[in-house]
């Protein structure tokens, strides 16, 4: 086991890692930027070190600053948390070059899974279904043939494009015929390359992910799934486990296939395989997250596993110490991301002082946060104030506990999305477990905001 770990992150996850270190009896140094001098993690830590100015590029994203901080404080490992440098193969490599351990997958593993396209091909070869697509389109006849094989609706995508540019939704063969030529010239003009391909369009999809852990000895377990379909502009807002989108049989099957694919493709340490589930219940692999996830607490609540401690143990070269049979997931858990955002004002991020803060309590209630009364929320970083997670024996119980806890939670001085969470919990689509990833963006948040103000 390590003797001392540098915590190279901020906010609630820095505190979460500090807690894991203390539980394991490992020393910890909190690395903080000047804007985070008053953060709870920096205050609670036995040792904390300022690594740079507020600008993340010169602090939390600066490999030299972080590694230098680890070296001068006598750390032998660095925990990157999530975001920032947590999935950066180059960083993991430099950390190792300085005789330190990167807590996460090795640089080689991060490199292997760095490209989304490469990862999809790799995991497809290990038995995971990916979103059906065509090869490069040669001519109209072949395009029609491919679209027929994939099944309408399809999306035309420029091979050289990215970020949704130049994509078109096609619902019929006739539309395909009339669009192909235009798309080609647009792609040529936009990207200097007129190569196009088709991909199946998943309309009302659900986002479901499988949590896996693989140690350095080839042992692997999964810790069930999480449903992250409640999203706004691709940002998760509420997560729950188990997913109401899967039957128990489908869940078992998907978990088993995910953990096998991760193991066989050479993955290592904690990882999350993300899938889109279409209306018929078919799961398509989209990407793997090579880090601890924001939403890990709900998995911890159902399995009882300290995932951050497990992540540290795996990086230290210890075996998992458990088999799949030891992983028992019980009950239902929901996480609410408490954000300093104003839902009534286009979700504008808020910064400023937390005048009052009261955490909810009671059975099955967990609050992960770095805020406290008097804490000044800096404007330089994200708007995550904390995560409220609740557990109950069943989903209805978890929803009830969630609502009670949200009513109790007080964050004074900043506008937050607490009322929006309550409105979503009270929404029939959510209660029925039928939220799709496009719901909030399609109907807009206004009805929820209005309901939240009742």
């Amino acid at each position, binding site marked *: 086991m390590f003797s001392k770990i540098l915590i190279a992150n901020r906010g609630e996850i820095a505190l979460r890692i500090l807690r894991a270190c203390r539980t394991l009896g490992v020393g910890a140094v909190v690395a903080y930027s000047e804007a985070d001098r008053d953060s709870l993690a920096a205050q609670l830590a036995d040792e904390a070190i300022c690594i740079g100015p507020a600008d993340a590029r010169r602090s939390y994203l600066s490999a030299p600053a972080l590694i230098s901080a680890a070296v001068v404080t006598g750390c032998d490992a660095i925990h990157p948390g999530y*975001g920032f440098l947590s999935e950066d193969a180059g960083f993991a490599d430099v950390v190792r070059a300085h005789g330190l351990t990167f807590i996460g997958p090795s640089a080689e593993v991060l490199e292997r899974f760095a490209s989304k396209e490469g990862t999809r091909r790799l995991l497809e070869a290990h038995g995971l279904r990916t979103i059906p697509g065509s090869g490069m389109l040669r001519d109209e006849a072949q395009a029609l043939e491919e679209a027929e094989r994939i099944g309408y609706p399809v999306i035309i995508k420029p091979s050289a494009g990215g970020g949704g540019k130049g994509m078109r939704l096609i619902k019929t063969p006739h539309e395909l015929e009339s669009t192909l030529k235009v798309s080609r010239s647009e792609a040529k003009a936009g990207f200097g390359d007129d190569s196009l391909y088709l991909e199946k369009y998943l309309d009302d999809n659900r986002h479901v992910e499988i949590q896996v852990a693989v140690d350095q000895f080839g042992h692997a377990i999964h810790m069930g799934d999480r449903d992250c379909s409640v999203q706004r502009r691709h940002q998760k807002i509420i997560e729950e486990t188990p997913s109401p989108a899967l039957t128990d049989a489908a869940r078992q099957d998907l978990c088993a296939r995910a953990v096998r694919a991760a193991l066989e493709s050479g993955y290592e340490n904690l990882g999350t395989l993300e899938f889109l589930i279409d209306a018929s219940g078919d799961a398509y692999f989209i990407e793997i997250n090579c880090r601890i996830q924001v939403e890990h607490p709900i998995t911890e609540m159902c399995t009882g596993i300290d995932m951050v401690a497990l992540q540290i143990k795996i990086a230290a070269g210890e075996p998992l110490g458990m088999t799949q049979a030891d992983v028992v997931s019980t009950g239902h858990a929901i996480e609410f991301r408490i954000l300093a955002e104003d839902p009534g004002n286009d979700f504008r991020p808020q910064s400023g002082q937390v005048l009052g803060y009261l955490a909810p309590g009671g059975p099955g209630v967990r609050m992960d946060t770095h805020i406290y009364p008097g804490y000044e929320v800096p404007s330089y*970083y994200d708007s995550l104030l904390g995560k409220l997670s609740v557990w109950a024996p069943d989903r209805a119980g978890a929803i009830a506990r969630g609502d009670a806890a949200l009513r109790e939670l007080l964050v004074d001085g900043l506008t937050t999305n607490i009322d929006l969470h309550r409105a979503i919990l009270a929404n029939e689509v959510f209660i029925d477990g039928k939220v799709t990833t496009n719901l909030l963006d399609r109907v807009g948040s206004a009805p929820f905001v209005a309901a939240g103000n009742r």
Partner: protein
Amino acid sequence: MPQDRNAVAAAPGRAAAGATGLDPRIERDHAAISNLADDLLPALIAKLATSGLGEIEVREGAWKARLRRPAGADDRKGSGRGSVGGHSGQGHATGRGPAATAGRTAAEDRERLAREEDGALETANLPIVAISPAVGVFQPRKDLVTGMRVRAGDRLGTVDVLGVREDVVAPVDGMIGSSLAEAGEAVEYGQELIRIELPENARSLEVNGADREAAAVLGEA
């Protein structure tokens, strides 16, 4: 695809959105920066260039900016050049970009000014210190002795960051005072390293305006 939020916030664009908002506090900040950038700084740069001062600090509301003469600039009088203390300040003095750019530089300024606040020259009586530019191992310059005269920008030592040396510089003209860190000591970013004492003839400069206050200071050429 969904991402963890820190990853998103790490992108510069996100920070810009936050700083260009309608939040009255931020708006006030923008107004203060605009005032500093558009009105005060150009006038002060001219003043600095034609005066014998080494450094000027100006305040607008809660904001401060400090102008520092480039180290080793011999053609002081009438040169018309004055260095703005910090890379982003230059942008303000020469013109304003689109809102998003202004927001980002505002944030940078805020950070920079916050950092300098401790050593700010509000009055000549406050202690002034050279601070660490990075986290690493401190080595003072070999020939450094108490009472030695130094100019703003002079290198007083280095902080070794994984083999790369970053300079510790004198923030103002003055004399070397007491040492606050040992040679070979591990230091953090912003840590106070060497006290600088002001020469006796330090003086202040008044700038007009009710809540505008410029104190400044420092040695003659």
